């Protein structure tokens, strides 16, 4: 009796530990079912935006825009009848976790594409797995350019698209003494490289170029430097929560945007909502999209977004590409036979895809896989929204290597000219 009971106990212990093991590492038991990407009338995609951690404050809205686009497509019949199944992961604002989760989406979940990332560091961290495993990454954020990967579709702006019209306009309107301030990482440094080239051509003077640590929130000395150097334009590529602190302390310090405006490539409705209209009013931003842009597509987008996520939510120039790039994905996949659906065929099908996005008609450049966009210049009002002062006369070609004329991104990769 005793023996029997023991062996029973043993068995149940084994059983219990097996249950524990499966619940802890569920993926052990999911074997590679098939190699086909689109099976059972489903197309699996990864959604990789931080829901926690420091950049979660912005990436959360990118996640929301992406999910909404997927839901809309599924509600209107999917892609040729196939549903898009999103696998959402939280990379927690940490490059290593980004890399780990990207691996899961590519290797384990066999996603056919992944939508994700905000920072350059996280994009660089996930690149190896997409390049070595021939998958496709859709990156919605404006970035510093100088990348020519065959495994990334870039739907955000590159420096020439944000600056070519913005910088000359500012010089004409405010003057030639510029103060460049950015967060200490590659995006601001590269944007400033490009900016300095433009300023040189316009005969301007850079009175200071400075970088603050990421996440910095004490701008007292910076504001004092503004006061003592008195630049005509403060060109800001400060990102994230630091933007809010910079604007609020600028205003609290008694500076006036009439004579010393901040011109930013990174201040969107999202940050303005957190700094208050008062602190934002009078400063300029250049971007392909603003929430107030008047077009039927944008009205639909903004209404749907607020209905889905809450009336107090805002859309901005990174959430808009997060939204429209899913539709571009749909258009590309639609062209394919279900048995042909794979990352490389989707990439080929994406080349030259056109659609009318909330910002206007956009197109994927076949050579660079970057996007033709509509740069706009906006000035912030005290109600927290921008007023659009000017838009480029045509969609602007993305030139990721514009500052480096001896290099060119082509369909065959980076070429030295």
């Amino acid at each position, binding site marked *: 009796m005793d023996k029997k009971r023991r062996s029973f106990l043993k068995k149940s212990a084994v059983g219990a530990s097996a249950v524990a093991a499966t619940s802890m590492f569920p993926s052990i038991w999911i074997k590679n079912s098939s190699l086909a990407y689109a099976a059972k009338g489903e197309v699996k995609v990864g959604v990789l935006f931080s829901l926690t951690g420091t950049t979660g404050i912005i990436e959360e809205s990118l996640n929301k825009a992406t999910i909404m686009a997927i839901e809309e497509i599924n509600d209107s019949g999917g892609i040729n009848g196939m549903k898009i199944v999103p696998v959402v992961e939280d990379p927690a604002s940490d490059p290593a976790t980004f890399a780990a989760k990207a691996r899961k989406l590519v290797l384990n979940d066999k996603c056919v594409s992944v939508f994700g990332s905000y920072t350059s560091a996280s994009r660089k961290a996930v690149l190896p797995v997409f390049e070595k495993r021939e998958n496709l990454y859709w990156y919605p954020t404006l970035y510093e350019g100088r990348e020519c990967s065959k495994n990334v579709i870039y739907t955000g702006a590159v420096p020439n698209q944000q600056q070519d019209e913005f910088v000359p306009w500012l010089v004409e309107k405010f003057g030639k003494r510029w103060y460049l301030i950015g967060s200490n990482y590659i995006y601001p440094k590269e944007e400033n490289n490009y900016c300095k080239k433009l300023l040189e051509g316009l005969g301007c003077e850079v009175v200071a170029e400075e970088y603050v640590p990421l996440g910095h929130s004490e701008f007292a000395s910076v504001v004092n430097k503004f006061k003592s150097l008195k630049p005509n334009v403060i060109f800001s590529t400060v990102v994230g929560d630091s933007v809010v602190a910079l604007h*609020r302390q600028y205003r*609290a310090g008694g500076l006036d945007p009439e004579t010393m405006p901040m011109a930013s490539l990174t201040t969107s409705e999202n940050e303005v909502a957190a700094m208050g209209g008062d602190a934002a009013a009078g400063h300029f931003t250049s971007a392909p999209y603003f929430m107030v842009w008047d077009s039927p597509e944008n009205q639909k987008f903004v209404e749907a977004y607020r209905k889905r996520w809450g009336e107090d939510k805002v859309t901005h120039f990174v959430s808009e590409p997060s939204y429209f790039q899913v539709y571009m994905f749909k258009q590309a996949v639609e062209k394919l036979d279900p048995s042909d659906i794979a990352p490389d065929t989707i990439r080929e099908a994406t080349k030259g895809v056109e659609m009318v996005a909330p910002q206007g008609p956009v197109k994927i450049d076949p050579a660079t896989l970057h996007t033709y966009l509509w740069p706009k210049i906006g000035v912030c009002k005290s109600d927290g929204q921008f007023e659009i002062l000017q838009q480029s006369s045509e969609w602007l070609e993305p030139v990721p290597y514009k500052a480096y004329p001896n290099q060119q991104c082509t369909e065959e990769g980076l070429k030295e000219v």
Partner: protein
Amino acid sequence: MDPTAIMSQLITGLSIASILLLVALGLAIIYGSTGVINLAHGEFVMLGAYSAWALQTFFSLNLFQSLFFIFVLTALLGWIIERVVIRHLYARPLDTILATWGIGVISIQAIRLSAGGELRYVEMPSQLASSVSFLGVDVSAFRIFILIFSAALFILTWYLMFKTSFGVKLRAITQNPEVASSFGINSDRIFGLTFAYGAGLAGLAGALISPLKSVYPEMGTPYVIDAFFVVVLGGVESLMGTVFSAIILGELTSFISFQSNDTIAKALVLLAIVILIRFRPQGLFSSKVRG
């Protein structure tokens, strides 16, 4: 540097120092008297900021009207946490690192799930939104307000610690718990109140910095690290030390960042901390060393 610039950086340094002091004061009291290494201190700061946001958004209270409620709310929360968790850990202070880290993680996610993960806006009181002339320099009125407020809080705390029976009891427990208990001092109750007071101060700090900085769930993390530097440098059982180390760090940051930039300022200030602690491990203003 011309004299106005020097004056202006001096005041900027004081302003940075006052924010450091505001954030560090609660930590100094908790760590100095109970030995608890409260890694969740930054989250109390964050909760203070979110309380300000919630009171403004849902009850239309401005910052001045909310301060009292914020103090009470965060202090109450601190007291509950002390009663439920920290109370069991006084005998093993190192373990408080793990427990308070856990509490911090929970608070961050609880706020994210309830108040949302995006940046939040706390309005600056309109009376203080402009800049004023102070000693010949143009300074933000709100920064001056923070300066005065944190000085007042410091004096109040000092009074509490050295002039009230609560403070006497607390210091007795800190110096010799056994003797104190033989005199009938209820250390349990005193520690609970101390923790609550420290948490309440952190909450006030969060509310006061929220109009100058940004409010989001992770905002507390940088503050707790800075606050620990201030407290340890000042000497863990010296309130005066905390003030002086905040002023030293604030002025250093101010002048170095004006001459070069904030990255170099941060690095050099940290190196200064390393060297000061190495050659004065008991802290700048304390003769005792907590092990």
